[in-house]
């Protein structure tokens, strides 16, 4: 058994809910700063304020050379965990011991400056990521070649296309050689082939005895790279074990979840005159359908609750299926597809039936939005993810080979052929 590289013991992280600065006045900050450290922190009036535990008693160990996946729905605490391990923020309680130099990659191209040239930015970003100058000099040509920007390396970054900027950022990161590498879901931007090359390069890093902690929503990447994964949910570590099992639990537990999940969602917009309390997917017999098949008959079930006195004349519900990059693919819109939902109850349940789910097998994002009166009452950008399994859409038992080239959306279609009059001239 190899040595431990990372050991986390009872990590907690607390955030205050609501607008920052509401109850924190200058006087408090100054008082807090000069308060003698020996004095125990007594319970103050602030304790009654509402808090949210982004991490709630998380403990685990990672062995040296291990590649550990971290998965879970949005808001589960994955990013908070990475931020603690990379020392960006402190845990409220608990200890994490790091047995090696940590390199964190929570974003591609941190610190890039548009006015500087590609060359200057390689040095800047490399140094920020913790590389020594001599190290960057030694790897410089490789980095530039890997990014494929040799011809523009002395051009200011502002003249680069966004794709080139991302590639340069990736290339620098790919040559990072810390003992412990912490990677957030930065690898979802940029073009796919290039991402693969970067992941491959990082894989080499890991096979060189380095430890990697890898947060992703891409289940296939997790399964391919990480033998073991942590599953986080609402700040708690709910499973720690082989990735097959973690992914299976994640897929069954978190896809289009029912219950109170959305009520606790922090990241949402809208006036709040009504809230979406849950959004789930059911099959024809009304059972939860965690992983629907292509072509299956399903329905979205959305529960909402409006504030007393809200304008209930017309309710508009939009459910948008999008790619992980955020590009919308398909929408279900109550005001477009029919007469609309009028004179609705204050607390109610909305159904949207889909006779044939027109999505290729794959992993999608679901956003939902509710309009009451003429205002956006509630908008949840990442309400859940949707994993579609293989199914029979056309009744032919056949599907396009893959979604990358042929597209992720299917449409019922009729094909026929008829003879044309042959041209006499030929």
């Amino acid at each position: 058994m190899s040595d431990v590289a990372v050991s986390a013991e009872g990590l907690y992280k607390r955030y205050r809910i609501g607008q920052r600065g509401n109850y924190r006045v200058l006087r408090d900050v100054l008082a807090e700063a000069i308060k003698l450290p020996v004095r125990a922190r007594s319970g103050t009036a602030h304790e009654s304020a509402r808090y949210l535990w982004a991490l709630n008693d998380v403990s685990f160990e990672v062995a040296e050379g291990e590649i550990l996946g971290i998965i879970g729905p949005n808001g589960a605490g994955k990013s908070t965990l990475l931020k603690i391990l990379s020392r960006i923020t402190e845990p409220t309680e608990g200890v994490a011991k790091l047995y090696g130099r940590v390199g964190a990659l929570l974003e591609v191209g941190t610190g890039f400056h548009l006015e500087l040239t590609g060359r200057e930015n390689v040095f800047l970003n490399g140094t920020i990521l913790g590389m020594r100058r001599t190290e960057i000099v030694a790897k410089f040509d490789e980095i530039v070649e890997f990014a494929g920007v040799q011809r523009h390396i002395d051009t200011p970054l502002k003249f680069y296309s966004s794709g080139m900027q991302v590639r340069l950022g990736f290339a620098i990161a790919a040559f990072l050689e810390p003992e412990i590498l912490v990677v957030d879901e930065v690898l979802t931007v940029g073009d796919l082939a290039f991402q693969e090359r970067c992941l491959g390069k990082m894989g080499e890093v890991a096979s060189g005895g380095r430890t990697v902690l890898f947060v992703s929503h891409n289940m296939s990447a997790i399964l391919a790279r990480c033998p073991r994964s942590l599953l986080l949910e609402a700040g708690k570590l709910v499973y720690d074990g082989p990735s097959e099992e973690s992914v299976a639990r994640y897929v069954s537990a978190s896809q289009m979840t029912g219950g109170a999940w959305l009520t606790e969602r922090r990241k949402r917009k809208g006036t709040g005159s009504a809230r979406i309390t849950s959004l789930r997917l059911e099959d024809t017999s009304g059972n939860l359908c965690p992983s629907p098949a292509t072509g299956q008959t399903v329905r979205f079930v959305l529960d909402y609750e409006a504030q007393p006195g809200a304008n209930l004349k017309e309710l508009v519900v939009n459910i948008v299926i999008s790619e992980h990059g955020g590009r919308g693919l398909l929408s279900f819109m109550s005001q477009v597809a029919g007469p609309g939902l009028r004179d609705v109850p204050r607390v109610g349940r909305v159904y949207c039936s889909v006779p044939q789910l027109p999505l290729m097998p794959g992993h999608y994002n679901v956003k939902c939005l509710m309009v009451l009166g003429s205002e956006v009452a509630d908008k949840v950008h990442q309400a859940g993810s949707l994993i579609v399994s293989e199914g029979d859409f056309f009744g032919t038992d056949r599907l396009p080979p893959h979604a990358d080239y042929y597209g992720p959306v299917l449409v019922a279609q009729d094909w026929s052929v008829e003879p044309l009059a042959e041209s006499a001239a030929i």
Partner: protein
Amino acid sequence: MASDEALTARAPVYVVQRTSGWGGLGRDLRELWQQRELLLTFTKRTVVVRYKQTVLGIGWAILQPFFLMVVFALFFNRLGHASSAGIPYPIFAYAGLLPWTFFATSMTQAAQSLVNNQHMLRKIYFPRLIFPISTILTALVDLAVASSLLFGMMTYYGVYPEAIRLVALPAIVLLAVVTALGIGLWLSALNVAYRDVQYVVPFLAQAWLFATPAVYVGTTFSKPWSTVLGLNPMQGVVASFRWSLLGSARPPGLMLAVSAAVGAVLLTSGIVFFRRLERSFADIV
């Protein structure tokens, strides 16, 4: 996964936990030293970026105090007949405006340094002190460039310093750095929680300029009062700067000692305050 025996013997490179009190200062300073390359890279970036796409480039470092000097020479000296202690007024004013411009630029830029880089605060860790310190190094570069004009003026007016007094110059600049960093640490950390700071800083700089004898003679006060004036560390800096280079005024003595003490208090308290708020920067910025 890892067995118990793996836990033994090795000490972790770093332990992440809630820090409390004043502890860990030694570790922080050691880290700062280890990251000196980053500090220099940042400073270089700021200098380069500041003068990119300007025609005059780093010449602006000279022109800013120069224009100020011209304005003050017109209004104070020509119209207001302000005394300049027997030294030609332009060089008198410029020698005061040099350390002043350094200080004002440092303070203003340092106050913004964390907020301007908030994106980095949230995405990567390195000692946060690097941000305000690098803005002060940047201002120091400007100071060095702007000094060249002073030396030119000294030749033109035939004002030559005594070599022995020049020895004190680095220490005087150091006091300006200490003061600027001290106030910069306070303001930058406060600015993270309260953006009000960015509106207060310009007024602070203006008021401070009037309280500092950058463009007028500060030694018109009698003995005990001139010492009290030293409570403004820039008073000591400007007076000593002139004393060292132009050799006019009496040696600042006690007033300088008061200034140095106040500067040291500002820096120490600034470091303590900054470190206490530092742990929450990423969460509240």
